[in-house]
């Protein structure tokens, strides 16, 4: 793993910043929500306490009645405006929260009740595929003239029973010959008038109770208005199909205990409105979770306003989703939700819910305790969208900042890594190149002036190289030193042999002397060779440079070789013009000597040695090639080293490979280079020396 990659991984750990920020923001949000819950709960508690001090203003009924919708109990919504009797409930100004009327035979009808200060309004939607109108006189026989008789005639009707303050029930029915406004009717029998007179009508009209009958595709709408003076306690309502097959609702005979009306408490709205602030709705409910009064509005923000931030991509990352919250419910005037249930059981409770519009609401409910019994509860609702927006904005900001920080950290680390890699790479390259192929050592390292660890490493390299250099120098001079040190004892032996020889020896003794002398001679040659490198280097250092014609020098030298090596054939190729070179002609001649000697040594008897000089851009190329054997690749790179020897032992003369070393030294003295290669045609080796032009 490269340093760059490693640092990138390290840099990626800064991603923990957004994560930590996210955690922090969540905690912050939780704290915010908590505090909001607490404050709303406190408000609810305060209101509940205030209300529990004056229960008579809150609860109309002193008994704790249980609301029984199946028994025909009906919640009467408080209406703020006077609806028109038109068969439409839209002008009631309250949500459609109907009570489904109980039925035994699948006849379906839904009922909602409301009241203003003076009237009780009833609104029913009845599903009835076939309209059975009230019969009119024209359709009946003469005997039956007069108002329709509910007992005899068959027609769609709505029956209501109103219980008076004394407990007696008044029965009314509504039917119509044609849709439109109609008044309540009651039978005389029911009205309690004795049927003493046959002429007296059997059916009476009560014009104060009116209803509007509206025919629809599914059935009919029935909207009725009853003065509150007619309503004392209970009210039963039954819808009956004209053919007598279907009915829904309740009757006093079936449910004597039902039909109770649950009214909101007068004046409670005004009382509540003194407690609440803007943006909050307060609702007081009784133990049946029926609203007794409410005040205030939940401010609803325009839906689009929070849409942008809500749809931010990191929403998923944060897992902040309002869709799994319970929805606020209300059916038939009955409020739902956990907070309401908890509060009614005596404990305050706050809860987050979703309104029907999909916005988040915070609800808090506190019980109203009267005489140690929860008589009801105060429910506060508050819009949480504002807080959500605040949170979203904070999250956005947090994310932007931490992501920017992370990106910056990554970029900075990458740049830093690139810089480090560059420095290390430079050091590595220098280390690679520190020891040349010829064993020369470059001591200076890059970065050695840096004060950090890389600088220390570079300095370490420098110390290492210096030590290596000392050792190399020692090794290099070892040959010279050895030859020097061995020369004296060798001279002792030789001079002793000389002396011995002059003593007049016998023949057999003389042969031993001769052998000893041969041995010392060989030793001497070896020692001379050992010291020769140093002498060559020294003499090259002292060489003087003159300008001379390389072409002429080569021509005359090769001519001399033809004489000197009569068994070898030489091919010479020279440029037409003089090739002037500034250098030491002696040394160049020596270089040629060594190249030719080498070529002659390796060239087979029948082979030829070709020498050529060519002008190349910036330098002369002198090549000497022979027909000798190929040089193994591992040998090629060492050929020009001092004392390197690769020979197949053609003679017993000791060779120490100084020749090609001298070639290299001379070439380098002239600013050129020497190299060896095998000929492309595989026929032998070619040595090339380049010498820069003047």
């Amino acid at each position, binding site marked *: 793993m490269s340093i760059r990659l490693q640092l990138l991984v390290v840099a990626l750990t800064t991603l923990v910043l957004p994560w930590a920020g996210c955690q922090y923001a969540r905690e912050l949000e939780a704290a915010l929500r908590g505090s909001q819950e607490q404050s709303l709960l406190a408000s609810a508690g305060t209101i509940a306490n205030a209300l529990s001090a004056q229960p008579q203003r809150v609860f109309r009924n002193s008994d704790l009645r249980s609301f029984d919708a199946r028994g025909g109990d009906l919640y009467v919504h408080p209406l703020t405006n006077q609806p028109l009797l038109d068969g439409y409930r839209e002008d009631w100004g309250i949500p459609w929260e109907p009570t489904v009327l109980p039925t035994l035979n699948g006849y379906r009808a839904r009922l909602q009740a409301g009241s203003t200060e003076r009237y009780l309004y009833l609104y029913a939607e009845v599903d009835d595929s076939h309209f059975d109108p009230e019969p009119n006189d024209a359709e009946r026989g003469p005997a039956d003239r007069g108002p329709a008789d509910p007992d005899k005639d068959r027609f769609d009707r709505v029956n209501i029973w109103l219980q008076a303050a004394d407990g007696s029930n008044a029965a009314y029915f509504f039917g119509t010959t044609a849709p439109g406004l109609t008044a309540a009717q009651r039978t005389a029998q029911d009205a309690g008038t004795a049927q003493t007179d046959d002429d007296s009508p059997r059916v009476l009209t009560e014009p104060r109770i009116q209803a509007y009958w509206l025919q629809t595709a599914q059935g009919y709408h029935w909207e009725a208005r009853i003065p509150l003076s007619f309503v004392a306690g209970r009210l039963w309502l039954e819808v009956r199909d004209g053919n007598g097959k279907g009915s829904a609702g309740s009757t006093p005979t079936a449910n004597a205990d039902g039909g109770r009306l649950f009214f909101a408490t007068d004046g409670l709205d005004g009382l509540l409105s003194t407690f609440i602030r803007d943006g909050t709705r307060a609702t007081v409910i009784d133990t049946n979770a029926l609203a007794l009064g409410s005040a205030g509005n939940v401010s609803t923000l325009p839906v689009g306003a929070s849409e942008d931030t809500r749809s931010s991509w990191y929403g998923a990352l944060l897992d902040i989703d309002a869709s799994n919250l319970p929805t606020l419910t209300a059916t038939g005037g009955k409020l739902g939700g956990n907070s309401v249930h908890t509060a009614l059981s005596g404990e305050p409770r706050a809860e987050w819910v979703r309104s029907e519009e999909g916005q988040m609401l915070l609800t808090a409910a506190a019980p109203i305790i009267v005489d140690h019994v929860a008589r009801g509860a105060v429910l506060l609702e508050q819009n949480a969208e504002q807080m959500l927006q605040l949170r979203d904005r904070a999250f956005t900001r947090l994310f932007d900042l931490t992501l920017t920080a992370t990106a910056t950290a990554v970029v900075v680390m990458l740049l830093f890594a690139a810089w480090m890699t560059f420095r290390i790479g430079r050091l590595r390259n220098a280390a690679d190149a520190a020891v040349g192929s010829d064993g020369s050592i470059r001591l200076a390292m890059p970065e050695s002036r840096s004060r950090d660890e890389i600088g220390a490493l570079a300095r370490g390299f420098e110390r290492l190289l210096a030590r290596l250099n000392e050792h190399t120098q020692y090794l290099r001079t070892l040959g010279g030193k050895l030859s*020097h040190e061995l020369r004296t004892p060798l001279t002792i032996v030789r001079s002793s042999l000389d*002396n011995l020889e002059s003593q007049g020896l016998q023949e057999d003794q003389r042969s031993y002397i001769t052998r000893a002398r041969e041995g010392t001679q060989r030793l001497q040659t070896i020692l001379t060779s050992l010291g020769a490198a140093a002498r060559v280097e020294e003499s090259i250092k002292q060489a003087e440079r003159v300008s001379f014609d390389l072409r002429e020098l080569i021509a005359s030298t090769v001519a001399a070789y033809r004489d000197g090596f009569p068994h070898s054939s030489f091919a010479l190729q020279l440029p037409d013009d003089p090739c002037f070179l500034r250098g030491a002609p*002696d040394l160049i001649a020596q270089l040629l000597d060594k190249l030719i000697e080498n070529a002659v040594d390796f060239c087979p008897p029948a082979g030829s040695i070709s020498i050529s000089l060519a002008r190349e851009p910036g330098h002369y190329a002198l090549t000497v090639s022979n027909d000798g054997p190929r040089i193994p690749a591992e040998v090629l790179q060492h050929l020009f080293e001092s004392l390197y020897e690769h020979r197949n032992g053609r003679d017993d003369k000791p060779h120490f490979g100084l020749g090609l070393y001298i070639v290299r030294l001379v070439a380098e003295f002239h600013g050129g280079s020497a190299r060896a290669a095998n000929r492309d045609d595989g026929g032998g080796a070619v040595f090339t020396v380049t010498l820069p032009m003047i």
Partner: protein
Amino acid sequence: MKKNIAIVEDEPALRENYAAALARHGYAVKAYGNRHLAMQAFRVRLPDLAIIDISLEDEAEGGFDLCRDLRASSAELPIIFLTARDSELDAVSGLRLGADDFLTKDVSLPHLAARVAALFRRIDALKRPDNAAEIIRRGALMIDGDKMQTTWNAVAVTLSLTEFWIVYALARNPGHVKNRQQLMDAANVVLDDNTITSHIKRVRRKFLEIDPAFDAIQTVYGMGYRWVE
């Protein structure tokens, strides 16, 4: 009368060998192990010829100091450096200090004796009146083979013994190329190619000091050198 030769050599075995060989050739040899002993003896009486090693015991360049002192005492005293040190620098230093020859210890005892004899011959010839000397004249060059003296344009060129033999060998057959081996044989020394080259270089320089236009010694690359008139 026997010639007195002083050998200053710190290696006892070598010293004895040289002393024995030279004694065999009829010289009176005195051998000294270090510079102080040698100087003590030289103050009493100067030898006829001194053979000096450069490094003497703990003095790495004691031989040079000794040579300087001897040359101060006598301008004519023949001095030969005989040393294991064969660097160009040492040779130049030694000859510059006034030594007559610079031999490495590769030289065999017979060769050493021949050198010593040649030097004495030169001294003797210088002392003798001019008669029937073997004189070689090549243009501005005049070589007196007896006295081993060389002049260029009648100005004496101070050549060491080795250098003299080289010039002598070249000038005797002008135009003939002498290769390095021939020159070595002529000088009675065992030298490697580079040493011959540096000898030639030194000889040229000595002539050039007298005559900046000197170019009588020509290099024949790949073969050797020749004297041109």
